[in-house]
């Protein structure tokens, strides 16, 4: 199925370290809804808390001084509770909502400087979006829905239908191409949404909570579908969710939003292993840590009396993957990187982290 988690984490971490050109770079992005938006640049009001700001100006700060980089080919997840500004943020990236302040660069191009014509061009060819409520056209068949983006950018009928057919097959809707959206289940409708977003062969795909309207089993299918598509077509993806399990499952890099600002950014294991504050800790407290964390997070320094001939693992091994080995030996596991022993992990620690679900930290 997917790449082993180990490798995914490794590649993402490596890219971040070596400074590959980001596909999307966001710098100091703000979005304010309401009358205050027009005259806000540089105003001391921006220092106020959200509630204070609302009281004084009657306007809402939905996104507050957000900066991040999205690397080519990664799945970048934005997570947060309802109302934390995720939808607003992702819409600001394609200017479906006009940002109030800040910069959004797509491959170095300032999107805020684009005129209407250029912006349409970008939307037609460079990025696409999948919506929570699907946004399908009920009066068109599935295939015409999938071909819609190609139609409005002026592709000829034959090639665009051929492409749409191909996309329907890719997402497993080959049998439903002539149906109308309301004849499909929710999961199938969202597959149409996926196919439509893929049809234009965009460079970046945005997902705004695409699966939260679906029931849990279908949701899992669709998540796997996204993982599969990510490997087959290799798009850069920006994925919004309020579901931590989904974020951990899909994300190479996760940012957590609260009240419009980013409170933590990091790999899934960083988020789970070292929550930046109580808000994030609350989020992650129910996660089965053994499935996310690597040995690096639970190892301890070696003591003189330790037996140093136990089994070896690299530090990026997920705890869960070391369980069966740890269970067969009394000796502590050695965490080894490039021949050097970084630390030791006791069998008890491994079993303990598997049991740990409810406790903090």
């Amino acid at each position, binding site marked *: 199925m997917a790449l082993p988690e180990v490798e995914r984490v490794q590649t993402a971490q490596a890219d971040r370290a070596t400074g590959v050109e980001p596909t999307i770079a966001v710098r100091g992005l703000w979005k304010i809804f309401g009358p205050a938006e027009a005259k806000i640049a540089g105003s001391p009001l921006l220092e106020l808390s959200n509630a204070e700001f609302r009281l004084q100006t009657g306007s809402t700060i939905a996104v507050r001084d957000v900066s991040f980089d999205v690397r080519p080919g990664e799945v970048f997840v934005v997570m947060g509770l309802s109302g934390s500004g995720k939808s607003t943020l992702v819409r600001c990236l394609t200017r479906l909502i006009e940002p109030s302040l800040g910069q959004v660069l797509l491959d170095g191009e300032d999107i805020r400087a684009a005129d209407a014509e250029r912006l349409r061009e970008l939307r037609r060819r460079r990025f696409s979006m999948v*919506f929570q409520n*699907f*946004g399908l*056209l009920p009066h068109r068949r599935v295939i015409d829905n999938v071909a819609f983006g190609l139609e*409005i950018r002026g592709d000829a009928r034959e090639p665009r239908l051929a492409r749409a057919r191909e996309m329907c097959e890719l997402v497993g809707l080959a049998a439903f191409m002539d149906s109308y959206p309301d004849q499909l289940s929710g999961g199938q409708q969202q597959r149409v949404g996926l196919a439509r977003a893929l049809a234009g062969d965009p460079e970046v795909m945005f997902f705004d909570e695409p699966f939260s309207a679906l029931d849990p089993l279908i949701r899992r299918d669709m998540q796997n579908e996204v993982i599969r598509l990510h490997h087959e077509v290799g798009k850069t993806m920006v994925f919004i969710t309020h579901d931590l399990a989904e974020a951990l499952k899909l994300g190479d890099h996760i940012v957590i939003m609260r009240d419009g600002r980013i409170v933590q950014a990091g790999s899934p294991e960083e988020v789970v292993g070292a929550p930046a504050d109580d808000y994030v800790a609350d989020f992650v407290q129910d996660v089965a840590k053994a499935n996310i964390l690597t040995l690096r997070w639970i190892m301890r320094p070696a003591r003189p009396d330790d037996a140093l001939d136990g089994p070896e693992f690299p530090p990026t091994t997920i705890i869960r993957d070391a369980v069966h080995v740890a269970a067969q030996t009394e000796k502590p596991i050695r965490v080894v990187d490039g021949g050097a022993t970084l630390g030791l992990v006791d069998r008890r620690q491994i079993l303990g982290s598997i049991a740990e679900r409810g406790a903090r930290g």
Partner: protein
Amino acid sequence: MAASATSAVRAAPTISRRTLVTLLCLSVVVLFVVFRGQGTLPRDEGAASFQFFNGVRDWVSDNRLTNPFLVVFAGATRAIIAALVDTSIVIAHGIGWPGAVLLAGAAGLAAGGRRLALLGVTGFLSLGVLGLWSESMDTIGLTFAAVVSSLLIGVPLGIAAGRSDRVRQVISPVLDLMQIMPSFAYLAPMTLLFLIGAPSATIATLIYAMPAAIRITALGIRGVSATTVEAAVSLGSTSRQTLFKVQLPLARKMLALAVNQTIMLALGMAVVTALIDGPGLGKTIIKALTHNDVGSAVDAGLAIVIIAIVLDRLTEHAANRVDARPNASDSARAVNRRVARVLLVAGLAASLVSLFVVALTEFPTEIGFSFAGPVNEIVGWVRINLYFLTNPVKDAFSYGVINPLEAILTSAPWLLIVGTFAGLGVLVGGWRTGAIVSVCLVGIAGLGLWEDGMVTLTASLVGVALTLLIGVLIGIAAARSERTSAILRPLLDTAQTMPSFVYLIPALALFSPTRFTAILAAVIYAVPPVIRLVEAGIRSVPLAAIEAGVSSGASPRQLLWKVQLPMARRSLLLAANQGIVMVLAMVVVGGLVGAGALGYDVVAGFSQYEDFGKGLSAGIAIVLLGVMLDRITQGAGERSSAGSARAG
């Protein structure tokens, strides 16, 4: 600080409102008793406003051919519309009755099926049988011309209002005003600019019907799912592409409804325009009404109802058809479609033939049936033999309710009345409402129509009280019993497709021309929508609230009074608002059957040269009355919603 200030404002009225109201009522009563009969504004035939409008009329007729504005705007508009309506009427006649009947059948089959085709065919045939073929074709031609132009202007405006908040903000108040303007109020200004006759009748009709076209179109565009529009934009669609590929296709059901409503409103108005010499069935009715000839009015009224029902069902089915998906396996449909095509060809052929055979454009007089004779006999019998029943009812109402109220309103100092209504406005809707109310009343006084205004106001208030009483009772009954609701539904449907004029006929049949007749007609006219709104309001009370009531042991009665009615309060107020607007419109029309006052002034303005100014002033006074009553009920509605928002 800000918070404490608002809470103080909130707290103040709850403490003093009751005392305030009591004080206000008391002082009004005292002032009335003390100053009764003083400071009134009796009728004044030479009021400045009448003379002013007469002067305007004279100036317009002197300069019609020289003043650039009149030549370009009024002249050209009239010429364009004249060409349109003349062509339309000529075509309606030229098709000939065999052609028209066949085409109605074809349309019925295509839109709905056999039953609808049957309705179309018998409907059109009976127009001929009633001996009203030519008048009916005039009405249909005029209506068609007005509908086409109304849609040509209204749909684009509606699209603009649906897509842009700014356009909507500009258009909305205008539409609000137009929607409460009774049909009568449009007539006088039309004659001033466009003279009398078919063109100005068409213009009045198209203006009357247009707000609905604009509103429903805008609603349809706004109703398109925001995500779907956003998805299209996110794929890079231009504004045009979004409109034509997403918004219009998804709003097409509402667009069809807009066409349907525009037709129905235009048909109703087309009949009224007979007062400014619009051709068609309206003329027949007005002649019959003014001669107290109920029988002929019934014939013509029936013809109008038939046209209304046929056009309504045809467009309604066509609208439902819009969303139907092509379904190859449906063989009955396929047969219908083939037959429809045959009928269409036959109809076109028949129309072509009647171009040369003039006889086909006239319905054969040998086949004819009129209700006039028998109806008049029945009416005569009723008026004599049921006199013992109808007269006491009428007298009780006239002497017990109408006269006293009228006496109060006309004998009180006019400033006291302005003050009282303004105070009411402030209480229910705030200072703005109070100000609007006083401006309206002062305006009526300024127009020199105070007394007529108060008489019309009396009739409206009595009519509204009756309408609400009956409407709310039946509405509650319908909401609580599926059976009642099922029986009422087709009646209400039919009632709401009938143009207002028709309602005068039964009222007139029972009671000869009096104020009471007009009020009764107004009540019959306004009750159906009130029933609808009350029923819908009670039914839309959330099930959870009712279950909560039941589980705490409420009896059905308590449930109604403590849960359903309070929660349906907004719909009840909306019902009151609708009722008032409709009653006023009809009370004015009742000027034709003895209601006198403002409605009569308007009608007299068209027939008497020297009364033109008074008629125009009366039209304006009607609008002012309408705005006042609408503001007071709307204000109450807004206040109640603000109250519930605060509570929730």
